């Protein structure tokens, strides 16, 4: 019974997807999504991002979902326009609290999640003194490397709570960047099609993201390459379709959500240290679908 109820957790797999898609991976860039700026030919970028995500739903089940994860990303510049990336999350905890006829139940798991590889190609660039404008298509796949049949004392965990969804997923989109010495604006549209495995498919997702990074320090330039501090304000609008379960759909999954993320970013020649808190502005969930309460992202990037 508990398992059946938990099967309707909904949108849990999309939490995995969001963790994988979200990291910004190249140069000075948003904290919550990819960017168009290139990785230099032969250059590597290593990124670690700690993510704490809290979600909840209304209704009689009163679900709470907590995720604590570390997302590791490695990027490589094949040439000045084409970069490839690999990303894998490790979930220290994926936990569900839900009200059932037996009372409040807690279920959790941990482990590596599904790995993602993707590529970005700078299709258009216009460089000018002290700035650049770029447009880059992005495409990738997520492989079912995470565990999709973990269990606990109640039996097998519900599919959305597993660290992997067992399916191959694909995504594609485009990202654009306008950067000057004073500020940077990025925007992205991305569609993600989630695959089906053992009768379950997380709903497909469409992302509309934007970011403003404004240099607040130094106020004036000295010679050389000083470190920058950017104030960030990022916007993330996502629409999720309902999850497919068996021959139907989960009515308590999917919907539309808009988050804003203020943050800070310190950048020097070799390192970026950054942090944001994503907060919900508005949401239109389907039924009693889960909604984000907040997402904290803290991490660093290092090039070599």
């Amino acid at each position, binding site marked *: 019974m508990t398992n059946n109820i938990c099967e309707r957790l909904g949108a849990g797999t999309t939490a995995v997807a969001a963790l994988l898609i979200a990291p910004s991976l190249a*140069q*000075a860039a948003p904290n919550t999504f990819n960017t168009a*700026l*290139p*990785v*230099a*030919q*032969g*250059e590597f970028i290593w990124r670690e991002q700690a993510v704490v995500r809290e979600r909840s739903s209304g209704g009689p089940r009163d679900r709470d979902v907590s995720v604590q994860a570390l997302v590791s990303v490695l990027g490589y*510049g094949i*040439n*000045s*326009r084409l970069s490839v990336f690999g990303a894998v999350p490790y979930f220290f905890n994926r936990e569900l609290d839900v009200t059932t006829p037996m009372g409040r139940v807690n279920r959790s798991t941990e482990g590596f999640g599904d790995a993602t590889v993707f590529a970005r190609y*700078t299709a258009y*660039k216009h*460089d*000018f*003194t*002290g*700035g*650049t404008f770029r447009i880059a298509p992005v495409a990738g796949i997520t492989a079912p490397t995470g565990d999709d049949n973990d269990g606990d004392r109640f039996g097998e965990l519900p599919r959305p709570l597993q660290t992997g969804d067992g399916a191959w997923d694909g995504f594609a989109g485009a990202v654009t960047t306008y*950067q*000057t*010495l004073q500020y*940077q604006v990025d925007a992205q549209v991305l569609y993600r099609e989630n695959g089906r495995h053992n009768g379950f498919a997380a709903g497909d997702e469409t992302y509309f993201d934007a970011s403003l990074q404004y240099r607040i320090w130094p106020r004036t*330039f*000295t*010679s*050389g*390459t*000083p*470190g*920058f501090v950017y104030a960030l304000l990022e916007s993330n609008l996502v629409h999720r379709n309902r999850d497919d379960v068996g021959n139907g759909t989960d009515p308590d999954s999917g919907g539309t959500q808009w988050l804003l993320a203020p943050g800070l970013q310190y*950048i*020097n*020649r*070799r390192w*970026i240290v950054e942090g944001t808190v994503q907060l919900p502005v508005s949401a239109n969930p389907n039924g009693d679908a889960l909604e984000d309460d907040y997402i904290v992202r803290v991490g660093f*990037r290092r*090039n070599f």
Partner: protein
Amino acid sequence: MLKKLLVLTTGLMFSLSALAANQYTLGVKGVACPYCAFGIEKRLNKVDGVDNVIVDIGDSVVRVTLAESKTLTEDRARTAVEEAGFTLDSFESAEGEQADDQ
């Protein structure tokens, strides 16, 4: 004594001239943050003979110093800058040779 002084002065002038000839200033378009600078440094440091690369981000210029007897051509500089994902705008050696793409 005068002869020694003349030789020393001539030697010093020759050395300064040789050193100056191995310094180049590149104008680079597209660089707008410190993290971008590393890619340019890395690509230019792979060029044979390059001793030092300094990116002056506020002025959008890159100062390149080469070892004695080594030279940097504009084509090689352009390739390195483009491999880093940016655009070479101007090329100037310390001797005054210039090329402006604007």
